């Protein structure tokens, strides 16, 4: 991106000049610009090589290891064991399916909750900047508290005997002798809650720029509010919807806190992240943990590519 920016700039400059000498110097300038760009890129590239590429390569290498002859816990040797990928895909198929299912549901719920919220903050209270800032702070403030603490707090708030669970029982969502924590619903609830700001903020930034005159014009042309929303507001806010859904879906698919047995989950709710955690830390099966991580990354990459291609990336943010 940076290179394109630099060379694009100089090319534009050169086209304006017509003499031979000028184009020669523009060429020189091109080369100079490229060198400067190259130098400026070095720190970034080094950073990426060190902290992104090296671990990634290491991860793939580890994913291809085989158990050593002793069969002892944590004992693996370098190999080219592609079978690991097939093994984890089969062994953890339910968890993989569940992760993306939970991520899909939680992203939809987060969108349904965040859109009106962002609309309210970005459009409705726009006329009162102080109120707008205050409501924005209200959206973000809970997230100044640690992710873990908030999740444990929900575990308490929804445990057996808690007033909140009582309400859920009274309206028939949870059986009277039943429980909520440890169920898939609890995990999806936790995921939705924890990732709402990642949905709200991008939506807010696009809705904040929404031109009110267009809505007025739509109404003037006899569109009902629903039509105004589907024809004007929603299309204009699509960049926010796309980036919001990406920012929630990707981390949710890899989350392992909410679904953990110690937080909101149980044996019934394990996601990919929990399996990576378990294979890495408890079973010390590094090849499986790595293969599963690579698989998770690849799946997300494919899903996101399809999604972005369909939704378009213009003005993503």
């Amino acid at each position, binding site marked *: 991106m940076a290179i394109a920016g630099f060379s694009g700039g100089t090319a534009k400059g050169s086209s304006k000049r017509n003499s031979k000498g000028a184009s020669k110097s523009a060429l020189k300038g091109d080369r100079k610009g490229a060198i400067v760009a190259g130098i400026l890129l070095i720190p970034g590239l080094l950073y990426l090589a060190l902290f992104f590429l090296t*671990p990634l390569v*290491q*991860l793939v*290498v*580890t994913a291809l*290891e085989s158990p*050593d002859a*002793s*069969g*002892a*816990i*944590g*004992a*693996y*040797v*370098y190999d080219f064991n592609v079978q690991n990928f097939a093994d984890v895909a089969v*062994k*953890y198929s*339910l*968890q993989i399916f569940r992760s993306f299912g939970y991520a899909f549901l939680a992203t939809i719920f987060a969108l349904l909750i965040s859109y009106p919220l962002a609309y309210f903050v970005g459009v409705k209270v726009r006329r009162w900047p102080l109120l707008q800032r205050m409501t924005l702070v209200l959206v973000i403030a809970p997230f100044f508290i*640690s992710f*873990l*603490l908030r999740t*444990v*707090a929900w*575990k*308490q708030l929804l*445990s*057996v*005997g*808690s*007033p909140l669970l009582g309400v859920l029982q009274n309206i028939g969502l949870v059986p009277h002798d*039943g*429980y909520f*924590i*440890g169920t898939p619903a609890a995990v999806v609830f936790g995921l939705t809650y924890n990732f709402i700001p990642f949905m709200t903020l991008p939506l807010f930034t696009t809705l904040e720029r929404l031109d009110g005159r267009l809505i007025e014009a739509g109404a003037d042309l006899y569109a009902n509010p629903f039509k105004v929303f589907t024809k004007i507001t929603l299309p204009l806010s699509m960049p926010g919807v796309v980036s919001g859904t990406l920012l929630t879906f990707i981390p949710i698919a890899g989350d392992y806190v909410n679904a953990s*047995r*110690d*937080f909101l989950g*149980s*044996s*019934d*709710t*394990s996601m990919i992240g*929990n*399996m990576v955690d*378990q294979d*890495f*830390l*408890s*079973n*010390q*099966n*590094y090849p499986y943990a*790595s293969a599963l991580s690579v698989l998770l990354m690849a799946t997300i990459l494919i899903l996101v590519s399809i999604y972005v291609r369909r939704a378009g990336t213009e003005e993503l943010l």
Partner: protein
Amino acid sequence: MSKSFSEDPMFQQALAFAKSPVTRRTVLAGAGATSIAAFLAACAKPGGSNTKTLTPATDVSATEKVVTWDNWPYYIDGESDQSFPTIKAFEAQTGIKVTYNINVDDNNSYFARVKNQLMAGKDTGADTMCLTDWMIARLIDNGYVQALDYTNIPNALPTANLDPAFDGAAGHFGDFDPGRKFSLPWKGIIAAIGYHKVNYKKLTGKDAPTSVADLWAPELKGKVEVLSEMRDTLGIMMMADGIDIAKFTSDDFYNTLDKLKAQVVGKQIRNVKGNSYIDDFNDAGDAVAGIIWAGDLIGKNIEVGNDNLGVVLLDSGSTFACDNFVIPMGSPHAANAEKIMNYYFEPAVAAKLALAGVNYVPPVKGTKELVISQNPSLGNNELMFPSADTYKNKLHNFRPLTPKEDNEFSTAWSDVISGVA
């Protein structure tokens, strides 16, 4: 709500994590657990076993008066408010500054975090840590830990205060380390059946469970929790089937695991947890009965100030294990670590811990008498001070697993508790 939010052990851990000051050491040793450890483990020489013989790091205890100790939750006095009275007294007495980290919540995950440093003989960030018997056996076998210098630990000599039940002689606890050359017991842990007296009576009409089979009563469906520590949960279940856990076979293991799986899948067992299970044994009844660590329930009763939780030592047998001190090869403060071990082998100090709510079995002779003098019911509690008869007939040790079995069984176990298999 029937309980205070701040009592939740997960909350306590998360809070401690959020509050812990960021120092070079914690960044290197602790925070790296998630990403750096993963990276290092991946970079480490594969094979898992160590080929070069490690030697102890140069000891700088005389000049650096510090010691870092990694331990499990609920193992020290003044943990909830970080006041640590006995540690403070040790600091005042010796001038050695103690950093006490509640860093261990699972043997395997702790080991995975420090494995690379242990293998390389480098400082793990902890000068001493307390881990469970089988893990200590693995550390000793691999040569990752230093021999103890008993001139610094005279209190822990068998002739002094080390309870003979824990001396590592054949047939005694600690027999993975004959003569206790490398390790010293910190606390003994009894795993047994625990229950909430009022809720259990309400649901089943009975006063107390008397066998593992009682946990599978239909009235308790979704109200049973068991420990995620394989050796305790399966150990107790195997003994209930008449299997000797000192010499069970692979078939015994898998048969019992199938039985557990049926209870997990059938939702009789609501959850399989580590230390955080204790919070579910609340008055509201998230969990009503299960396989638990006795000391946790006794401690919870003392903390809450009632006697709602009960522990049953099964006739078929309960498991007993120890958490033990060791000093990793890379620790530069071995002598300081030995001094703190020595300190906790004073009966008066061990008694203080017991009276302050650390209700696990102290391996220190003379503690029982001191506790009886101040709190007779606690001092006479079989679950804290088991009699010779109890040791012999009711408390049993899970047999050591071969490295291969360890791998297979652990994987099979975690697959069942995470719903994979």
